[in-house]
Each structure stands twice: as structure tokens, then as C-alpha cells.
């Protein structure tokens, strides 16, 4: 029996408004096991970004709680690396500087830090551009830096919000392959938010399907397909159809 890495326990979120507020999330609950890759998928307005922010400790829940390895989330934590859709790389730092940011907050010596940065650049295939500034990089490159930056501090969990939403389709499918191999190599727990059902079926062990107004869990779907998954497979198409069906209900 593996350990529970992320426990989302009856999380609700209400934003204050004129007529008693808007309910963004209602009693959302699910667990993510150690080493699992779970996608959260749903149409816009289902509160998945709100859920992402609550899990990441960027926003408090109105009620309920999120626990990482048993510890309640009270704010952003180095145990959980966050990757954003819009990258949010520090433009004043080079690729290497971005990756080393988190390590600089820790008490490790310069050599160990430099080695770790090289290791990360190598992992995401950016070892050729360590001294470029983010401005000059393509979207795919930027997100590789974003992933390397989050992984550098060796978090247990990687939390990703539509990380490949701003890159072209070809780069996206390349990044899917890279993410899967990074995941297998590092054995991290990955929580991946997306609105793209194909993407979720390509990546996930399990898919948390959300429904809107108020945001809630519609169903949790096990994806029992061997990797690497081919979009042209019948089983893949069936799985996608099934999840799409849930969303349009």
C-alpha cells in the first residue's frame, strides 16, 4: 500500500460577492498516491485553477483542507514545486539563474548547487543555453526552464497548471514525452491541471473530472492504458470519448 502524497479533503471555496458570493468549489475531495500522475480536467469555470491555487498554498480554502504527506497546507512550500502556464520565469535571470533560484535559498555550498543546476539543465535538455535570458527563448524552452526550476529543489510533488497551454501542438506532444520520462526518472508525484482531455488521457494514471457551477468532482477515472500511449489507438479514443462524455453531461 503506497503512501498518500496529496489529500484534498472536502475543499470548498466561496468568493465574496453581492448576493452572498460565488461558490467556486464545493466539497472537492480526492487523494493522490506517492509517485502517481493525476490530471485534473474540466471545462472552464469548473474551478480547477482555484483548486490549483489552493493545493499550491497560494490561496486559502474557505473550508476543508489540503494535506501534503499528511501536513496541512498553510502556504507555498518547497515540498511542492509549481509550474505555471505563463512560465513566470524571472526575466532578469539567465536560464541557469532561474534554475538555481530555489537552491540559493538553501544552505548548500556553491559546488553542490552548480552540480545540481547542471543536472537539471541536462534533465530537461537545456544544457546548450544556460546563459540565455528568458526573453530569447521559445515557449517550449521557457517551460523546460520552468520545470527545471521547480524540480531543482527536489520537491516531493510537482503541481502543474496547464503548463503546455501556450505552446504549439507539436512542441506540446514533445513536452508530453519529456514530462513522462522525467516523471519516470525522478519518481515524483505529479498533479497536472488541464482543460484538454487528450492531454489528460495521454499523461494520467487517473483523471479527476470536474464539473462546473459549483466546481466539484464529477468522477475519478482510472486510465488503464500502457505507455507510451498512441492517440490513434482504439482504446485511447474510447477513453477520451468517455471522459468527454462526462464533461458534457
Amino acid at each position, binding site marked *: 500500500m503506497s503512501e498518500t502524497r496529496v489529500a484534498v479533503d472536502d475543499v470548498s471555496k466561496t468568493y465574496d460577492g453581492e448576493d452572498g458570493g460565488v461558490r467556486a468549489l464545493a466539497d472537492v475531495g480526492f487523494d493522490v498516491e506517492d509517485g502517481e500522475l493525476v490530471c485534473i480536467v474540466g471545462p472552464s469555470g469548473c474551478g480547477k485553477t482555484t483548486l490549483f491555487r489552493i493545493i*499550491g*498554498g*497560494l490561496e486559502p480554502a474557505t473550508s476543508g483542507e489540503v494535506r501534503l504527506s499528511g501536513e496541512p497546507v498553510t*502556504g*507555498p*512550500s*518547497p515540498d*511542492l*514545486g*509549481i509550474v*505555471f502556464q*505563463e512560465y*513566470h520565469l*524571472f*526575466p*532578469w*535571470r*539567465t536560464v541557469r539563474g532561474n534554475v538555481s*533560484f*530555489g537552491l*540559493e*535559498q*538553501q544552505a548548500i555550498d556553491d559546488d553542490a548547487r552548480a552540480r545540481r543546476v547542471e543536472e537539471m539543465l541536462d534533465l530537461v535538455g537545456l544544457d546548450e543555453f544556460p546563459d540565455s*535570458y528568458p*526573453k530569447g527563448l521559445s515557449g517550449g524552452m521557457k517551460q523546460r526552464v520552468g520545470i527545471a*526550476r*521547480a524540480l531543482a*529543489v527536489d520537491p516531493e510533488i510537482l503541481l502543474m497548471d496547464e503548463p503546455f497551454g501556450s505552446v504549439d501542438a507539436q512542441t506540446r506532444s514533445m513536452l508530453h514525452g519529456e514530462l513522462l520520462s522525467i516523471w519516470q526518472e525522478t519518481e515524483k508525484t505529479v498533479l497536472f491541471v488541464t482543460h484538454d482531455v487528450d492531454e489528460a488521457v495521454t499523461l494520467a494514471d487517473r483523471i479527476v473530472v470536474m464539473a462546473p457551477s459549483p466546481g466539484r468532482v464529477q468522477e475519478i477515472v482510472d486510465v488503464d492504458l500502457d505507455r507510451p500511449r498512441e492517440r490513434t489507438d482504439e482504446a485511447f479514443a474510447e477513453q477520451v470519448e468517455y471522459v468527454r462524455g462526462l464533461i458534457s453531461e
Partner: protein
Amino acid sequence: MSTRLETDLGIEFGGDYDRRRLALGALGVVAFLLVWEVTSWFNPAYVLPSPRAVADVFLVELRSGTMLTALIASVTHWLPGTVVGTTLGIALGVTMAYSDLADDMATPMVRVLRPVPPLALIGFAIAWIGLNHAGAAFIIAAGAFWINYYAAYGGVDGVSEEFLDVAKSLGVDTDLGLVRNVVLPAALPEIITGIRTGIGRCWMLIIAAELMGVPGVGRELYTASQNLSVDAVLAYILLMSLVYLVLDTGVGAVQNRVLGWQ
């Protein structure tokens, strides 16, 4: 082959463009001097001396050492005034923009004090500090303060929340850490622009600061004005412009270097 051609063309085009600009600039200067020269033919020297006469006075003042002494005297209050005012302005601007508490507390006072021109503080400078370099430095510091305060405030106010989120998720857990690692570097372009503007404005402010009798370039300008020596007035104006040109070019070069990432 074709790439090479393009590169060649690019370089040549760039070179031509620069040369053209330089040539036009030189033409403008010559035209200005010419108009000045011709106008001076029809006016007595105490109204408008010729460019040549101004250049002569400039050289005389330079060789006699008067100009250098005045310049050193001005820098003696300009430099500390600018440094102190800039530092305080940035420190307060960053603090107010970062902390809502500090902002709420200080905003009314900022609103009241902001419209006070540095020159209006001459009374305070004399009463509190005296007719000396420190008094002049005080007025210059007041000028530097507001420029840098607003530049830093605007820069910090514009730092995106997401950068702070990223930094927190990577283990930065104190306000000081966030300011040092994220807020200051993110706001640096605005802060440096403030410093650059402030340096220039404060250099102009020495005229006002020396009004009360502190020695310096401004003082020489007043003395010359009172003696109706327009040639000397123009010579010292020329000195001020030259110093400003050197300062601004220097700071501009530093700015380009530090902000290479933009």
C-alpha cells in the same frame, strides 16, 4: 551567399545611418552657431557676445582655475545630496509600495509634502544647517528624494504577484527575502530610470541650492549675472551642460549594462 550579402548590407546600412545622423547633428550645431554669430554682430557684447568671445571666457576661466574650483565646490554638495536623497527615496518608495500598512500610514503626509518644491526648503536649510555645503546638499537631497521615491514606488507596485508566488514556492519565506530576490530585481528598470533622472535634475538644482550663497558653479553664474557679464554666464551654462552630458552618458551606459536582460 545570400546571407552574407544581407549581413553586409545590414552593416553598411547601419553605418550609413549613424554617419548621416552625426552629419545632420553637426550641421544643426553649425547652423545654431552661425545664427548666434550673425545676431551678435548687431548687438552689443553685454547683450549677446559672439560664440568666439564666450569660448575665450570659458578658456580664461578654465585656465585660471576658477572654473575647476567652482566645479569641485558644486560637486561637494551635489554628490552627497544626490546619494542621500536617492537612497532614502528608493528605500521609502520600495517600503511603501511593498507594505500596505506603511502605504496607508504615509500616504496623507506624502500628498501634503509632495508639492513642496525643493527651493522652498531654503529657509529650513539655512535655519537648520546653515549657509554651507551641507545646507545645499539638503536641498539637492530633497529634489533627488521625490524623483526616486516615485520611480521606486511605481516599479515595485508593478511587480507581478506571480513572481512572488514562484519565489514563495521555491522557499523564500520572509519579506526581506522577497524584496531582495524578487521585488528589487523586478523593479530595477524603473529604479535605475529614477536614479538617472534624479542625477540630472539634481545637477540642475545646484543653481537653486547655491542661491543662498554657497560657492559653486551656480554661484559663479549669479555673480556673472549681477556683473552683467553675459559671456561668463554663457561660459558657465556651457560648463553645466558639458558636465550633464558626461554624467548622463555615463549613467546611460551603466543602465544598458545592468539591464542587458531586457
